[in-house]
């Protein structure tokens, strides 16, 4: 087994341990707690609101804009991360380039904000 | 830079365009003003034409005169070269004559829907296009003018035409464009394959002077054949030659009278002119190879046109089919590749322009009076409108080639020339064509006399008796027709001036002027002739 895969073995062991622990605690509580089933208890928890209709409901298009903004800044983070690891190596050039990058993206966010799509009515 | 040397042709060509612009600028309501402006413009152009005719040096008709050569599109070495020689001169004169007459004719009787502003500007634009095609000495310039002619004619048929005008105009446009598409490719092939340096031009050139002076000798035989084929289709559609002729009857039948006249008198000549001016002088070798085939299609056209005529019931359609037959004679003359035959062809072009133009005028006038051209319903023109009947008879006689009238000098020498074609061509074949063509003249007499009998002879049908609309020739018609009738007679009685004008230029166009000792390859036997062209190619390659 190569070196790099061996280091992932550690991850695997940690993961397995985690799963085991969760299983152990849930199982333990199931053993000790009292069981009195009622119909209401089996309702899906929706912040205290009665769930109506099927689970596959149509969502509002506004969610989409949020999701897209999220993706946008997700991608931004992807670019920022490598820059941040070697900040000093790129000097002012890197700083300026990154500033421009973030600035342009910020303008997009600013536009979306001013257009009111971030406000939930 | 003297006026008459450089500017005459350009001014003459573009005056109608300026006139068209003026006509378009005049408000629609001023109908009279529009008509007079158009007429005056065409008369100014015709006046310049008269000056050209008097000033032209007939002793040197073989050479291009009034040559102007200016930069146009230098990147493709296409120049604005214009000039006129003995072949182009009669064509120009014909154009300049026919257009004012057409305008006069429309002034008397305007086709529906009226809109004189549009029709007259179209006629003037058309005139510029036709004149430009005849003076152009650069292939691109030629092509541009050749195409410019298309659109006004298209609109003339499409707007002022008969019931089936849409179909006819589209067919006309698409056929011609199809031909010119292939023609353009041929021009380009020649541009890239020819070497202008041997005649002192740039290597790649569109100059028709350089290309007919022998810049093309270096092109391989197969390439020449293909290039010629492209041009053949392009010009052949316009002529129209036998398999490409089907647009013509439709276009003629549907076009308004002036449209038919211009179409018959000038537009069809663009095709034959192209053969004489471009295809044959530039590619004599390919022309020799294709000539028997062209001759064959020409005689098929003669017979087919004649038979077609006999099957018609519509007078205008009959005249249209007779055009196919007549242009067949012209093409037969061209296909002999002799100066005799081509002279006859040029004469035939002029004569056909005058005669058929006249016939269409009469057909138009008949239609105005009777509102039909169905020969079964017509009849007795000699009784109800005797002068018009006689004019129709006169033109029919001229058309069937009666000696003493212009038509004779187009047909008879063409038939004669095919008895004795250029030596390089198969003699027996052409003699066969001669026999068939002679048969064609008999058929021509048949259908024209039949038409005459149906329309002019007899008594008027009941429906047209005492119809006040049926009057004899009116003044405007006299003005429009008299010059044509006079010329038909004059040229028929004394054809020499026209023949002597064209002869030098025709002789020159058949020479391959490449190097000092020019063998006349076309006048050698078939095998020797081909060897002669091969020799030329080798000499050219040896020379560099």
């Amino acid at each position, binding site marked *: 087994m190569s070196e790099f895969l061996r280091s992932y073995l550690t991850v695997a062991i940690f993961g397995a341990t985690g799963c085991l622990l969760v299983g152990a605690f849930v199982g333990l509580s199931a053993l000790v707690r009292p069981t009195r089933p009622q119909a209401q208890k089996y309702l899906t928890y929706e912040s205290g609101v009665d769930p109506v209709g099927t689970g596959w409901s149509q969502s509002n298009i506004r969610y989409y804009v949020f999701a897209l903004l999220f993706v946008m800044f997700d991608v931004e983070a992807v670019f920022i991360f490598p820059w941040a690891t070697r900040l000093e190596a790129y000097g002012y050039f890197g700083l300026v380039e990154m500033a421009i990058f973030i600035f342009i993206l910020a303008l997009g966010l600013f536009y979306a904000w001013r257009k009111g799509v971030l406000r939930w009515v | 830079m003297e006026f008459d040397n450089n500017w005459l042709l350009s001014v003459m060509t573009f005056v109608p365009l300026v006139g068209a612009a003026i006509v378009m600028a005049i408000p629609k309501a001023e109908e009279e003003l529009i008509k007079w402006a158009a007429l005056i413009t065409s008369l100014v152009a015709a006046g310049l034409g008269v000056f050209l005719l008097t000033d032209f040096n007939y002793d040197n008709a073989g050479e291009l005169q009034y040559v102007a050569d200016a930069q146009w599109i230098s990147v493709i070495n296409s120049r604005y070269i214009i000039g006129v020689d003995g072949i182009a001169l009669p064509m120009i004169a014909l154009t300049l004559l026919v257009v004012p007459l057409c305008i006069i004719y429309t002034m008397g009787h305007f086709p529906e829907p009226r809109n004189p502003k549009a029709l007259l500007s179209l006629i003037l634009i058309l005139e510029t296009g036709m004149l430009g095609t005849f003076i152009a000495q650069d292939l691109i310039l030629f092509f541009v003018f050749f195409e410019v002619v298309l659109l006004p004619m298209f609109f003339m048929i*499409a707007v002022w035409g008969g019931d089936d005008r849409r179909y006819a105009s589209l067919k006309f446009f698409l056929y011609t464009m199809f031909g010119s598409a292939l023609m353009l490719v041929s021009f380009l092939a020649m541009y890239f394959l020819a070497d202008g340096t041997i005649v002192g031009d740039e290597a790649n050139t569109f100059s028709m002077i350089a290309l007919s002076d022998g810049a093309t000798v270096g092109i391989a035989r197969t390439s020449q054949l293909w290039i010629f084929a492209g041009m053949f289709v392009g010009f052949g559609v316009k002529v129209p030659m036998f398999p490409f002729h089907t647009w013509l009857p439709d276009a003629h039948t549907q076009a308004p009278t002036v449209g038919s006249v211009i179409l018959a008198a000038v537009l069809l000549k663009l095709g034959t002119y192209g053969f004489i001016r471009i295809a044959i002088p530039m590619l004599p070798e390919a022309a020799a190879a294709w000539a028997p085939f062209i001759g064959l299609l020409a005689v098929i056209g003669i017979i087919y046109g004649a038979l077609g005529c006999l099957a018609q019931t519509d007078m205008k359609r009959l005249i249209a089919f007779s055009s196919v037959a007549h242009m067949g004679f012209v093409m037969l003359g061209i296909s002999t590749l002799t100066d005799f035959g081509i002279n006859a062809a040029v004469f035939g072009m002029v004569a056909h322009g005058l005669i058929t133009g006249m016939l269409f005028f009469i057909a138009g006038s008949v239609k105005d009076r009777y509102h039909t051209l169905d020969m079964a319903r017509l009849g007795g023109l000699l009784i109800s409108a005797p002068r018009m009947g006689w004019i129709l008879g006169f033109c029919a006689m001229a058309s069937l080639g009666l000696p003493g009238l212009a038509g004779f000098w187009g047909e008879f020498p063409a038939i004669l020339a095919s008895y004795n074609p250029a030596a390089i061509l198969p003699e027996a074949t052409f003699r066969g064509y001669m026999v068939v063509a002679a048969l064609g003249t008999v058929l021509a007499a048949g259908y024209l006399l039949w038409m005459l009998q149906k329309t002019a002879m007899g008594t008027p049908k009941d429906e047209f008796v005492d119809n006040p609309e049926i009057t004899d020739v009116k003044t405007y018609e006299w003005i429009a027709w008299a010059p044509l009738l006079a010329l038909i007679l004059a040229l028929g009685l004394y054809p020499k001036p026209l023949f002597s004008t064209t002869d030098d230029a025709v002789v020159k166009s058949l020479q391959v002027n490449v190097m000092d000792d020019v063998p006349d390859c076309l006048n050698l036997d078939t095998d020797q002739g081909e060897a002669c062209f091969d020799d030329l190619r080798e000499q050219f390659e040896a020379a560099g």
Partner: protein
Amino acid sequence: MLNILAQPPTDAIPTPDVAWSGLMPLLILSGGAVLLLTIVSLAKDFIPRWFTPIYTVLIGIATGVAAIPLWLRVTDTPSAADPNNGPFATLDSSFGVDGFSVFFTMLFAAVVVLVALLANDYLRREDIDGPEFYVLMMLSASGGIVMASANDLIVMFLGLEILSIAVYVMAAMHSRRIESQEAGMKYFVLGALSSAVFLYGIALTYGATGSTNLVEIREFLSNVILLNDALLLAGFALLLVGFGFKVAAVPFHSWTPDVYQGAPTPVVGFMASAVKAAAFAGMLRVFWLTFGSYRTDWQPVIYGLAIATLLVGSFVAIVQTDVKRMLAYSSISHAGYLLVGVQAATNEGTATVLFYLAAYAFMVIGSFTVITLATGPGDAKTSLTDIAGLARTRPVLGIALTVFLLGQAGVPFTSGFFAKFYVISAAADANSYGLAIVAMLAAVVAAFLYLRIMMAIWLDGDEVADPTELAAAKAGIPVPWGAAVVLVVTVGFTLVFGLWPEPMIEMARDAVPALAIG
């Protein structure tokens, strides 16, 4: 943090030089777009309606003006006085500035100006939000500039995406028309697919050559003889498919008719001119300039594409009854002509493509201007019968449309004639006579289409004799000043360069692409 930056690090990375002058037009155009976005966000309620179109026109003009000194510089040869003359590249050879890219920059600037003028009244008529349209259009044109200037496949891909995504949105902007939405959707789905294919092509080319930089790829291909070039050829094929989608070459054309029909008419004008031009710019840059040494491999493919495109474009157009669909097929057949020029794979062939694109851009914007005006509110009445008799109620529009249609048919005395002629001559020069003949015959078939439209506007429809009715019909088709300016410019361009094409041809020939290192 600034302290960290101030210390010269031991392993500082050499940062690339930026030649600002070369980036100027792009910066003006994209910066202008971003600035407009900011202005809109800051003061959305205080902006008068005339501001955005005028602003866009000014930005477009500024872009074009900024390109002029660049043009003079890159088309000149280096001399002792000006050693910097000639093509150059910047940002680690990823952005090339040569005659080719500057030519396209100017073309895009012109398109932006014209479409902005046209769109103003359209957006008002259809009640579509203005500023975003202009922002997207300017950004899209910036993407076009990036594509035409890209010296790196990744940069070219991003240019393509900037160009396309903005146009997808623009196509769907007429939110009350379901066809517009459909157009945006179709264009997006197929466009995204083609982008993916394009990207895959880049990956394979990278695998075969070891670089995404066009300069390095060309070096590699001319220095290394590949014993096995399957990977490279697969890359070519995929890149070609990507470009083929954008230029609407058959068999990648299926989106065109629906999108042209559904999208807002000014956007179609933009698509037909700018998007097509940008895609051809990219294609020439990648195939002719970079893969030039492999031209025997890709020429036959483009030959086949050209023939298919010409034939399908002209023949299928015959059976259409909707004007926008007709022009969509006509744009397909124009793509065929342009491919004929690309196929020639010579500098002359490249020049013919540039000339054709410039001529076509003006003609097509003009055509869609007339159609925008003629179809009236709703933008949906675009069948032949809807515009019948246009020339009689509005002779000016009729004449203008006739000029554009004749130009597209390639009738002499229009720039379209020389465009076609020049392309065919390039094909003849490259000895592709078969292609030349097919192209000319396709022109005849296509002419039928243009004649049909012309007949509809001149001959069909009821004759309106009554002057008051005529006046009412006229009033139904207003010609606002912006559209009038567009018509004057486009008709002028078409006719002037039809009579005297020399300057434009000279310019196209000077705009030969070059790959510079910098």
